[in-house]
């Protein structure tokens, strides 16, 4: 299987699964009977003419930084450092992987192995490691404390495991890619694809789906507040 179609296949694979996952998320939100904030978010961003586009962007970025990246909503207020670091690693890890995938795809569409020491692969490894450690920490936390284990929803444990599985599989695939062992990387590639599809199909049904809805709903709210204050 020559190289060229591999990256196209990988790209198409991602696009299809992304669409599938969005549909799953929308079905789930429909069952909740709540509005789809993404539509309102986009509408707010582009339709409203009075407010300059830049100030709207600024509002989004400031909410993103203040709420999400500073983990205000995701553990920052929680005194339990173990939980805070686990969450931080997981979120930064996951975010990083998504960004690195995009960058890799743009800079290296045909997936030429760059070797271990190449800065790009180092950063990718780093993010995967973050995700692996973060998800394992969260999983471990909920496993050790007996009462927490008893009261944790199995889906949450499954979520942490699936993220951990995805991270491990990701690292092994990338390292095999760099190591140049064609046979090994192809098997690992398919395992990696299984990891990705697991995420795409499972995330919208898990807590992350809820967090995506919540984040976009809060962004829309902050935009609405922005409009109200400027009227």
């Amino acid at each position, binding site marked *: 299987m020559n190289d060229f179609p591999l990256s196209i296949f990988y790209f198409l694979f991602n696009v299809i699964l992304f669409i599938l996952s969005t549909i799953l998320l929308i079905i789930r939100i429909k069952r909740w009977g709540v509005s789809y904030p993404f539509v309102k978010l986009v509408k707010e961003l582009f339709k409203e003419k009075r407010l300059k586009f830049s100030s709207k962007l600024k509002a989004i970025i400031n909410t993103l930084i203040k709420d999400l990246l500073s983990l205000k909503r*995701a553990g920052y207020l*929680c005194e339990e450092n173990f939980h805070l670091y686990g969450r931080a690693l997981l979120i930064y890890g996951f975010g990083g992987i998504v960004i690195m995938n995009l960058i890799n795809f743009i800079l290296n569409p045909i997936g030429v192995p760059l070797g271990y020491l190449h800065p790009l692969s180092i950063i990718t490894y780093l993010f995967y490691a973050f995700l692996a450690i973060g998800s394992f920490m969260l999983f471990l936390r909920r496993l050790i404390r007996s009462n927490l284990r008893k009261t*944790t929803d199995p889906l949450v444990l499954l979520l942490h495991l699936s993220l951990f599985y995805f991270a491990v599989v990701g690292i092994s695939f990338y390292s095999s890619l760099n190591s140049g062992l064609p046979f090994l990387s192809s098997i690992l590639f398919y395992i990696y694809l299984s990891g990705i599809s697991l995420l795409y199909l499972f995330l919208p049904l898990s807590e992350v789906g809820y967090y995506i809805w919540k984040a976009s709903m809060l962004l829309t709210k902050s935009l609405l507040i922005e409009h109200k204050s400027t009227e």
Partner: protein
Amino acid sequence: MTENNNEKEERKGKYIIEREYVEDERIIEPEKLDIGGVDASGRWGLIVLPRVIKDFDHSLIDEVKKLPRGKHIERCWQCGLCTSVCPVAHKEPNFNPRYFIYIVKMGYKSEIKKLKKYVYLCQGCGLCSEACPKHVDPSGVMMALNILFDKV
């Protein structure tokens, strides 16, 4: 979070001496009110709505039970263990998992409207579910209430 934005605007009902006993939501102070040619705006046309609970409404609780991880909400007997271990509750007094569950169970819409912007502060850390003696899984219920309060 620009939560309490009413600090900026002039506080309603500032002439009421026992002002802090009256919640903002219950004060209706008309900017402009004309009664038969007489200008009764502001203080002169101010009315304070009663805070008597007239009825109980349990439709909300059926909705919560349908939402993910909200199905054990009826087990809650208001013991307050969740609020006692909740890290957010110690920092933001308006965030109180026990109270959220109670106003949803009894359907006190006015309280829900007043406090709904605080329910998004839940960190999902699960300590409340760990502490809950009746395994209500309040952290899951908070997720459900996040969804529900967006509709109320």
